[in-house]
């Protein structure tokens, strides 16, 4: 099911085209990483999606509707935008209770949501004394208040320590894979999301440069399969005969291009050659990212 749909979205601030004809979708039960360097237009896209910024043209829909038309938005979409959006003199619990009142949710949700992000101990502390990581958790707990099925998070890993990032990864995977939520998470640091996301949308200078699954992105055209075989001398000509490009790396080790692992295995079986290693060589995602976004 398509949870989020961005279609030909465009938004300019003055003469700067922040978002320029971006389209992509996010499906339920998956984590989609929205990646791009700082200033690429990620935040503007998300704010258009959430009705905070009015796009110049195009559409940004959640569950097929514009966010501003949702009767009870927080029960459908949980959003985390900046970590700084709290009144420093207000306690964490009071902050959430205000949102509960505005959304018509029972007040118990406030303490429940704080417990879900591990902030129950500091519920009655003023937010002014919180670390950046605690603020991120508080922001996440506010997104959980309405128990939504769609999550939109803008740079949620900013300011988190390594343990916090690890926690966030697990939490996002849990939301998507165990609870079937659609999660759209933006980041300018690929490493933060690499182990979490199923799909990737890459944007640079307001334009979409790549969309696909993480596997598709990393196994692009020139990726190879490393094969260690008992009888490489027999296998190599057979693979070449089937159309693959074979590079003899060393004795018993081949690099095969232009053929998938299944076909390689089938040919090996036909030739009665034992394969002792089959490794899909992944191209370095960081390299791909930098190439695609023109940062290199």
């Amino acid at each position, binding site marked *: 099911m398509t949870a989020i749909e961005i279609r030909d979205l465009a938004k300019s*601030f003055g003469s700067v085209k922040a978002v320029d004809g971006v389209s992509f979708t996010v499906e339920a039960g998956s984590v989609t990483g929205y990646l791009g360097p700082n200033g690429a237009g990620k935040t503007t896209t998300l704010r258009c999606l959430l009705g*905070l910024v009015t796009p110049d043209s195009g559409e940004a829909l959640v569950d097929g509707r514009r*966010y501003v038309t949702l009767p009870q*938005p927080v029960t459908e979409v949980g959003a985390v935008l900046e970590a*700084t*959006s709290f009144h420093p003199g207000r306690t964490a619990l009071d902050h959430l209770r*205000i949102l509960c009142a505005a959304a018509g949710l029972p007040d118990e949700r406030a303490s429940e949501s704080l417990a879900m992000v591990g902030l129950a101990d500091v519920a009655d502390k003023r937010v002014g004394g919180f670390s950046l990581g605690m603020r991120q958790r508080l922001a996440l707990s506010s997104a959980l208040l309405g128990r939504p099925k769609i999550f939109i998070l803008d740079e949620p890993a900013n300011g988190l320590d390594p343990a916090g990032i690890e926690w966030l990864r697990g939490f996002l995977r849990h939301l998507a894979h165990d609870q079937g939520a659609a999660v759209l998470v933006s980041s300018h640091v690929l490493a933060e999301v690499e182990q979490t996301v199923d799909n990737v949308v890459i944007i640079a200078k307001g334009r979409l440069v790549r969309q696909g699954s993480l596997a598709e992105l990393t196994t692009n055209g020139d990726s190879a399969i490393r094969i260690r075989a008992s009888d490489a001398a027999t296998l190599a000509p057979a693979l070449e005969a089937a159309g693959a490009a074979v590079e003899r790396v060393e004795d018993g080790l081949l690099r095969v291009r232009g053929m998938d692992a299944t076909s390689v295995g089938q040919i090996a079986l036909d030739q009665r050659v034992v394969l002792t290693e089959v490794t899909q060589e992944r191209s370095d995602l960081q390299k791909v990212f930098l190439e695609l976004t023109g940062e290199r």
Partner: protein
Amino acid sequence: MIGLVKAEVRKLFTTRLWWIMLLVMLVLIGVNLTFITAFAGVTNEAGGGAALPARDTAEWVQTAWSSGSGGSIFVMILGVVMITSEYRYQTVTGTFLTTPRRRRVIAAKLITGALVGLLFAVVALVVVAAVVIPATLLSGGELSLSESRIPQVSLGILVSTSLYGLFGIGLGALVRNQIAGIVGAVVWAYVIESIFTAIPVLHPVGKWLPGGAAQALMSIDVDTGLGRPEWLPAWGGALVLIGYGLLFAVVASATTVRRDIT
């Protein structure tokens, strides 16, 4: 809408500013009442008439009672802060994510601002009553509701203090900068309105300002030594005040509804 008003009330009462404002208002009204009570009926040495009527007169009760309007500026500041703190701390993002129909947020803020104004006015009136009623009775005066116009002055204070909450919200939505909004409110109330309502030559303009209209609504009819001011009739003052309230409500709504929150 009840939920939204509840949220706005919580926003106000979960931070400290409201009781600071309430405290300052009480101090100001207290100082004012002390002055009015201490110098009541005191004639100056040059042999002229007393600047303030004597404590046992209905005129003194009316003058003292009107000091209950001292809460307006503080309610206005709270109104300014109700809007500007949302921008200052970017809580406006969460507010509009929860309630994307922004007009409803503004409406809830206006209702809350008026309610807070009402609350402050009631507190002010209780304090005023606690001082003025014993003071005039102990001085041998009689408390006549009709002669001292207590009901009308009280009503004027309640209505005008409430509406100053709306003025603050409108001003806050217009400037969005907290310091600019508060300074603007103070300058407006203590400088511009004071000048236009205190100097007789400027009364033709001053009577159309919110402060002048509030005076008209209270129908304060006491010569302060600068000549008897020519206010609008009480109903005219009420209409002008409500007009300002609507104007600021429209300003608050128009400046907020389509703005990009970045």
